[in-house]
């Protein structure tokens, strides 16, 4: 009886692992995977990180107006940077998604502005190293993430779209105004409104 039961559970595990995405959602732990890459250059762990994050980085860039080809290249470079810099990841400072979004931002600048020899990504890196936590900043990265998640969940679909716009758009506000056929002033005021709404939620949650 016992053996039969154990077998059944094992079968269920296998079935769950084989189901599309089943194992993925149950066991994906980005922090552990990054730690494995940092510790021993674990290629299997890296492959999992790549499969999870590269399509998301690509999706995020394309949402912001980057071409598929360029988004693919930046996503590749972002994940290669994750491989190289895994040891610098500090989960106490920011979660894995935030860290990878930061790397993606920096790689996008390097790649999209390579003709002008932009050094801006180095500036962001210096700020990351040199910004010591102030006494009023003692909130942990995890606490901050929880507050952000709560604030973002409370946004309407429209507000969410405008927040996306504020962070992702490659287009100028002028382009956005033309695309949406609304006046430039309206784009700016919507942006201001969505950010202040988000700001209000964040302050409430402090």
């Amino acid at each position, binding site marked *: 009886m016992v053996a039969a039961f154990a077998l059944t559970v094992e079968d269920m595990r296998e079935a769950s692992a084989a189901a599309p995405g089943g194992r993925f959602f149950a066991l994906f732990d980005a922090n552990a995977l990054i730690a494995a890459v940092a510790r021993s250059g674990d290629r299997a762990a890296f492959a999992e990180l790549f499969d999870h994050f590269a399509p998301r980085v690509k999706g995020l860039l394309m949402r912001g107006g980057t071409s598929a080809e360029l988004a693919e290249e930046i996503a590749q470079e972002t994940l290669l940077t994750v491989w190289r810099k895994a040891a610098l990841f500090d989960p106490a400072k920011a979660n894995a998604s935030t860290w990878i979004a930061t790397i993606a931002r920096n790689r996008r600048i390097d790649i999209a*502005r390579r003709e002008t020899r932009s050094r801006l990504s180095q500036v962001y890196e210096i700020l990351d190293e040199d910004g010591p936590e102030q006494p009023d900043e003692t909130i942990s990265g995890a606490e901050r993430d929880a507050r952000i998640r709560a604030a973002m969940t409370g946004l309407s679909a429209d507000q969410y779209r405008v927040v996306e716009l504020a962070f992702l758009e490659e287009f100028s506000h002028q382009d956005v105004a033309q695309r949406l056929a609304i006046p430039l002033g309206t784009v700016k005021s919507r942006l*201001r409104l969505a950010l*202040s709404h988000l700001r209000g939620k964040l302050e409430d949650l402090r």
Partner: protein
Amino acid sequence: MSMAHRPSDETLAAFAGGHLDEGLALVVAAHLELDGESRRRMREFMAIQGELLDRIEPIPMAAGYPAEELEPHSAIATPTASPAIAADVPAVLRPYALGPWRPIGLRIAMRRVEVPGADSRVFMLRAGPGIALPPHKHTGFEWTTILAGAYEHQYGRYVVGDFDEADTEHDHTPAVDPVEGCTCLVAMTGKVLLQGWLGRLLQPLVRF
């Protein structure tokens, strides 16, 4: 004690997203280096981008990861200390070449910051105590972070770490602190329309 002057949410979001002109971004970065509260806001904005990444619809990659491009594990980065830089220059200027200080008038000097990727002109400006900078208007932006000392104009008093975001709507006449003088980092886009005789002395700022 005056109110601290900080970038707007829109400006900080554009900075966090990496969408600002490099020169304007550099002035925001110099402010962030000096201001813990703005750094806290920026970290929130970075966390928002992490959240956007979590929620975005993935788009399949055309290719897998290039296994041959993964360096051996021994080459993986470990934390290193940054090289030191002169105490009177913001750390965020480290990647850039700085010109020499050169006088552009009585007790006013400037030093150019070479930012090849920028549409704006970037420079440090140092003015002696009590100097009145010439009245001027802008056709573009003039963003400033105060690095030392203070100045004052009709929108308030700006002290070390403060960020001054002026655009075409502004028409200002900064007066430098009578005791401390003022050193600041400035990025300008468009044209500056100088008024008065001192304007001629400041032409190098506008033209270079």
